[in-house]
């Protein structure tokens, strides 16, 4: 398509470059800011000689193997678990109305920030938690809370539970999103029908026909989940052990330690964290190869039925347990937020009151304001950049190159703990004093990839004949963009905005570091309070963290409906 050279088209044409630069410079610059101290360059401490002493010190840390193993193990197991359950749910409820219901139930979990989810699960599985109260004293004869393993168990089982419950809805929605794409979903469904007509049981048909094709589309999101979970801080901090903690948590503690020389060790740790993440990705790839090799014969052996009923039963049980876990965790949190004193083992609080909500809401105004300003600014930026970049794709008639496509996911694939500390150093170097801008910028790094991910498909899928007709009628590219494409895409744009807001709401480490601690948001307050004294206040903040994104998703979902009704 020949495109006129106007201000609009020029802006659009440069936007992919701007977007890539906005993502690459901070991430690579941040990595540099960690790489130098990791190898001993830290002038503020008088360390100006390159060397490996940071790493020597790191590996001399008591329990370092356990830390590495814990990071590696919890993220691998939780991702595997989430993936397997996702596949089981898809296989069992494929073409069944239950799939929609489960999706509707799990969807909201996706937008619950990690910190809030960890707090809720912690409340559930603690010795004095809802689960233990549910069975006490009638079954367990406990009248004081038991001194048991969870949370903070040394094997990281609580972390695995927390991570898996957070990852599962993400993977499931990604898979459903792929299946919802007409060119893929339709084909796969037809293939499944063919398989059924050939006498395959629906479950076996799913495994043999759909999964191999579907997996290809899910690989990148899975790797992102794996990378994220290996270096996440909130869940291991709130649910994990501390003798020793996971590597990422230890790095954060070293960075913040009184003993400033630990900074060098922390930087070395950040480099090792990247290696751990890489080795996880390689492991996943290895498992993938292995499964492919082992299942090749099975896929083509022509067998029509492989214990479909048993798998279905197992899936039913898993789904039931999972859903009730989520419901109980949420219920427990709601109870805590309204509880007076709640003596053990009573199932319900001794009194109910609104006092915690009242006092929290009066203290919450400033953080709430910050949360909203930052989220709206970073999301708006992300939406504009994404739309322009996608428009430039259409004007130049080719999709963003594979390299650029990967770069968009850079902030999701590189452990944020590894480059965020460097990013703060970078802000210092350019003397960026406006903490608000710094935080918005840091949030953009995480909001942008998700917004892009969420918008790209709808934008690319928009029928090109609309714009061809408009152009042939003499409409300028800018007019086509503003008056044709955007109104047609209003629904996905609003959903992407809600997603962007939710991502921004949930950011803990970027807010804390880029904001120099000056900017409090609901999330930073919630994490601070999670380690604090009051379960009640903590529950209020965690619920608030859940309500905010939910509110905007509902708005995003309702607005186009109201508008379209008004238009009719």
């Amino acid at each position, binding site marked *: 398509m020949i495109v006129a050279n106007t201000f609009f088209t020029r802006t659009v044409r440069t936007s992919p470059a701007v977007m890539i630069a906005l993502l690459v410079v901070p991430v690579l610059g941040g990595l540099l800011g960690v790489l130098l101290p990791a190898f001993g360059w*830290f*002038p*503020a*401490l008088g360390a100006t000689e390159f060397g490996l002493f940071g790493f020597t010190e790191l590996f001399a840390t*008591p*329990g370092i193997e*356990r830390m590495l193993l814990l990071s590696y193990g919890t993220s691998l197991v939780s991702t595997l678990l989430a993936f397997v359950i996702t596949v089981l749910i898809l296989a069992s409820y494929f073409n069944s109305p239950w799939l929609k219901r489960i999706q509707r139930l799990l969807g909201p979990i996706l937008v619950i920030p990690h910190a809030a989810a960890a707090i809720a699960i912690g409340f559930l599985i*603690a*010795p*004095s938690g809802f689960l233990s109260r549910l069975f006490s004293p009638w079954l367990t004869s406990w009248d*004081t*809370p038991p*001194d048991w393993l969870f949370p*903070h*168990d*040394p094997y990281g089982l609580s972390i695995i539970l927390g991570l898996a419950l957070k990852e599962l809805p993400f993977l499931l929605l990604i898979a459903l999103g792929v299946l919802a794409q007409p060119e893929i979903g339709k084909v796969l469904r037809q293939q499944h029908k063919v398989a059924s007509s050939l006498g395959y049981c629906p479950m076996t048909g799913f495994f043999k026909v759909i999964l191999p094709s579907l997996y290809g589309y899910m690989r990148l999101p899975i790797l992102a989940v794996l990378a994220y979970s290996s270096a996440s801080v909130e869940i291991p901090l709130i649910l994990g*052990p*501390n*003798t*020793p903690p996971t590597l990422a948590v230890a790095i954060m503690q070293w*960075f*913040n*330690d*009184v*003993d*400033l020389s630990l*900074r060098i060790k922390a930087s070395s740790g950040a480099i090792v964290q990247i290696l751990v993440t890489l080795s996880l990705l390689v492991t996943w790839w290895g498992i993938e190869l292995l499964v492919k090799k082992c299942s090749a014969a099975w896929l083509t052996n022509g067998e029509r039925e492989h214990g479909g009923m048993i798998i279905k039963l197992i899936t039913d049980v898993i789904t039931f347990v999972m859903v009730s876990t989520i419901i109980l965790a949420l219920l427990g949190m709601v109870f805590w937020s309204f*509880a*007076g*004193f*709640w*003596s*053990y083992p009573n199932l319900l609080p001794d*009194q109910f*009151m609104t*006092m*915690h909500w009242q*006092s929290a809401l009066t*203290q919450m105004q400033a953080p709430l304001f910050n949360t909203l300003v930052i989220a709206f600014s970073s999301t708006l930026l992300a939406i504009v950049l994404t739309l322009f970049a996608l428009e430039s794709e259409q004007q130049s008639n080719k999709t963003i190159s594979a390299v650029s496509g990967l770069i968009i996911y850079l902030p999701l694939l590189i452990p944020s703990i590894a480059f965020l500390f460097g990013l*703060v*150093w970078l802000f*210092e*170097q350019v*003397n960026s*004093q406006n*903490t608000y801008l710094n935080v918005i910028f840091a949030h953009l790094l995480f909001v942008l990839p998700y917004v892009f991910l969420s918008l790209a498909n709808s934008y690319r899928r928009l029928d090109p004949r609309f714009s061809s007709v408009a152009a042939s009628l003499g409409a300028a590219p800018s007019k086509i963009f503003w008056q044709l494409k955007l109104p047609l895409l209003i629904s996905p744009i609003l959903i992407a905005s809600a997603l962007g807001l939710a991502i921004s709401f949930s950011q803990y480490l970027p807010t804390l570091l880029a904001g*120099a*601690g*000056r900017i*409090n948001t609901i999330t930073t307050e919630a*994490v*601070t*309070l999670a*380690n*604090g*004294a*009051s*379960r*009640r*206040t903590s529950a209020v903040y965690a619920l608030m963290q859940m309500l905010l994104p939910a509110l905007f998703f509902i708005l995003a979902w309702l607005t186009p409906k109201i508008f379209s009704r008004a238009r009719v």
Partner: protein
Amino acid sequence: MQAVNKICQHSFAGFYKALCYLLLLLLPQQTVFAAESQSNAAAMWENIEMRGAKQSVYFHAWGGDQQINNYIQWVAQQVKQQYDIDLHHVKLTDTSEAVSRVLAEKSASNHRNGQVDLVWINGANFASMAKHKLLALDWADKLPNFALTNPENNPAMTRDFGVPTEGMEAPWGQAALTFYYDSLKVQQPPQTLAELLSWTKQHPGRFTYPKPPEFLGMSFLKYALIILNENQPEDIKNKLYQAATAESEAQILPALWDFLDQLHPNLWRQGHHFVSNGLALRRLSGDGELQVSFTFSAAEIPSAIARYDLPDSTRSYRMLDGSLSNIHFVAIPYNSPHLDSAKVVANFLLSPEAQAKKQQTSVWGDSSVLDLSQLTPTQHAYFDMTEQQHLSATIINVDNTRLLSELHPSWSAVITKQWLARYGVQ
């Protein structure tokens, strides 16, 4: 004068003696100078107040307690009214965050425009900032209200964990280790360290302490260390208040490790997991998982009861064999762009009005650092307010136990390192 005396004692030097007399003759004149310099100081302070007005002060202070946050909010209103200063409370989860920030600024050669104007600090954080020259020097002793702490007779005001403060930080409050328990579940709480050990044997899993280097956990270990070395000869005991050496470590620490080896199997989670801070202790006490616990800010207990975070039957007490106590301070980083405003705020924090408000249990309950005998009757009146108190606000044994002073800060690092090596991986 000490130096003069020493010189006079020199036996063979008549010359010095003459010089001493000469100096003595000069003394009255010196007092004149002193009076003059006093009015000078007042003028200088007025200048500081003037320059400090209409600016912002970013006060980096631990923000994990709502009561303290509310008190700082009150301070912000007051300094706005009285000095036209905008005080912003930057809530830290750990004071070391501020330390790291100033260090990062120094490493980026940001020597004038730092983000931290005032920081709530003591102990190891102070030692670390002082060591790396990250603090403004020689200002705290010139605050007009500093004299009210009676520093000549109260050496604790100018020593932070044994390290001389040299005017780098102004005292703000003081605290002592206070234990608390649920009187419905525990009839006889342990009143000495030895009793605590036997109590945990009878009630396994109902006591724990935060993982070092966390402040409160460290304080418990220091309390234990002092008590366990009580029967050592005086010269060995004194080493606790000097920098740790390999020799003193070998003399002092084994008693602590022996004690902990016995204590840990009966701690909460058999000592496999330690909570991260004192607030977690309070939460677990509220849940009923812990039955005896401790804190540095005794006033948080009645207020936690009022918010239903602790049972109504909670009572607080001090250990009979001693209670570790320390002073906390505020300091100004060397690169604060609002040095004068920060001084004005620090001075206000030391005012009888602010100190008396802080001491009320319903506000914060943090003991004042002022020497009440130094106050004028009007100033004293601030402290005379009586308040309604919950039973837990009355600390049992408060008058019949001694206060144990803080160890030299180097011990914290030593204890943490060896603790982590022994118990950090389980």
